């Protein structure tokens, strides 16, 4: 019996032998973190079209599609050291009309106080890391791939709007933001801090991150739909939208 026990321990340690960061057998079983992205406007959950909102340019808009890519998740500990979630598993699609929750499993038991994540896909890292290309079929099905350039749309934001001067004149708008080949990198990293929490063995902690949709139009830059309602591979407006987006996330305490 003892023999078999040793054997079992042997097998178990061999199985984990290659996760060399955590080779200590005394490490407690990991826990999980469930991150929900809540899209909001004016502090309340976003309602899709036909609900309308007004931006700072006095344009009335309704949203028919809102999707974005979240990637490269790192958890920050109180001493500022980080735990990097496995990169190949760290690409997620947030879809207002679908999944908005990112489930991170196998997180080492520890105290955490913040998070860094990417908006979009880091063109300098991708697709070097093994496994990252497995996100392609997924993004493709969600319409988040610019297939003609083999690149990702980081943000897909579509709907209709009307201006203050012609309120009955409804026009569609399309914001598709991604990187432009190797020429323009619209990937952004966002760091948020929150009250310290503990990831405990075999336990799931839930956190909500809010994304303020109104900031797509109005934040560092003010964007008018009347001026430009179709932003796709747009070297002037796409970077502005990406910068606005990078200010739009906050932790719901």
């Amino acid at each position, binding site marked *: 019996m003892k023999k078999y026990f040793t*054997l079992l321990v*042997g*097998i178990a340690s*061999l*199985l*984990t*032998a*290659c996760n060399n960061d955590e080779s200590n057998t005394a490490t407690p079983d990991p826990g999980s973190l469930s991150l929900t992205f809540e899209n909001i406007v004016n502090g309340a959950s976003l309602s899709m079209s036909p609900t309308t909102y007004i931006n700072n340019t006095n344009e009335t808009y309704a949203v028919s599609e809102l999707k974005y890519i979240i990637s490269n998740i790192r958890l920050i500990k109180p001493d500022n050291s980080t735990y990097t979630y496995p990169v*190949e598993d760290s690409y997620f699609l947030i879809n207002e009309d679908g999944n908005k929750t990112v489930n991170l499993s196998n997180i080492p038991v520890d105290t955490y106080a913040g998070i860094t994540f990417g908006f979009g896909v880091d*063109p300098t890292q*991708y*697709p*070097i*890391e*093994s*496994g*990252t*290309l*497995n996100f*392609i*079929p*997924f993004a*493709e*099905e969600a319409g988040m*791939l610019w*297939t*003609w*350039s*083999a*690149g990702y749309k980081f943000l897909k934001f579509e709907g209709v709007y009307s201006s203050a001067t012609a309120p009955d004149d409804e026009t569609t708008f399309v914001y598709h933001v991604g990187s*432009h*080949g*190797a*020429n*323009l990198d619209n990937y952004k990293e966002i760091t948020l801090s929150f009250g310290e929490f503990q990831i405990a063995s075999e336990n799931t902690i839930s956190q909500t991150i809010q994304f303020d949709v109104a900031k797509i139009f109005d934040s560092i830059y003010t964007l008018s739909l009347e001026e430009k309602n179709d932003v796709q*591979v*747009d*070297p002037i407006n*796409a970077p502005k939208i990406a910068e606005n987006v990078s200010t739009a996330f906050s932790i719901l305490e």
Partner: protein
Amino acid sequence: MKITKYLILILFIWSCSSESGNGESVITTDDGPLTVTNPLLDFTVPANFPDATYSILQNPPTEKGFELGKKLFYDGQLASDGVVSCGFCHIQSFAFTHHTHITSHGVDGQIGTRNAQPLHNLAFMNEFTWDGAATFLDTQPIIPITSEVEMNETVSNVILKLAADDTYPTLFEEAFGSEGVSADRMFKALSQFMVMMVSANSKFDKLERGEAVTFTDQENAGRAIFDAKCASCHAGALQTDQSYRNNGLAMDPVFNDIGRERVTGLPDDNRKFKVPSLRNIEVTFPYMHDGRLATLEDVLNFYTDGMVDSPTLDEQFRRPDGTFGIDITPEEKVQLIAFLKTLTDNDFIEDRRFSEF
């Protein structure tokens, strides 16, 4: 007890099998575990070449990975009609171009807007396609697979087909050391095949490396003209400086191809295309991004007399008197063409490793 030890050993190899699957790996078959030897292939940078841009260490070509990549490259299952494979448009004897048609033909005989590019020395390129739309070799195949006028498929569906196939699951396992047909592995295998396509054995290369070849007087004269008038763009061993330029082709009103501007959105990039490598140029006709010129004579006649002006025309082509083009005499044209033919690498074109059968 012995059996258990054996099991531990297998488990150990499994848990440690690297994605690159170099050396030996144990795979499961209907008859139990099987050890597969999957040696690394020798990827050597030719002495007259710059460093590779492809990150070989992250995806080192192996024998089985290369074989899998080659099978995928020649497999019509990557297209919606089950017929149009990569090799359909990229034919080895023409340095992996297609030239029965001017622009490429895909599924249902649909006509693309661009001329299929040669595939060689891809491990040394910064960006891919005529306008640099693809920034990684690993992702480039997304473009032909999904393009309606090429293979008209989806990556998701290709993976489903491969996973349901009789042979692919085993080939993927042999190549990568563990079970699983995935998009990542498909792209990595295609890259392993394409990265090995190094063309560096033309007469020109041998002379560059100081090997025992000599140029004829005509080839030498051609080389001098080339160095003076062409090598600013068609530069170095790769025969391209990898920049995007407008060489004065008139806009084709049917295709209305804006070139690099499609990728960057910048008006300054309007009508610019990647400077093509002139390696194997003798066999990669027709020429230019839309294949509008049939012969090398046509190309040289275009450079002397056929250019049109536009705001982004490369400054090098502007003559002081306000006209544009390159001055080349008829005799020099003959010499230039003799030189261009020294760029043909028959070893590459006939290399059995890359051929379909």
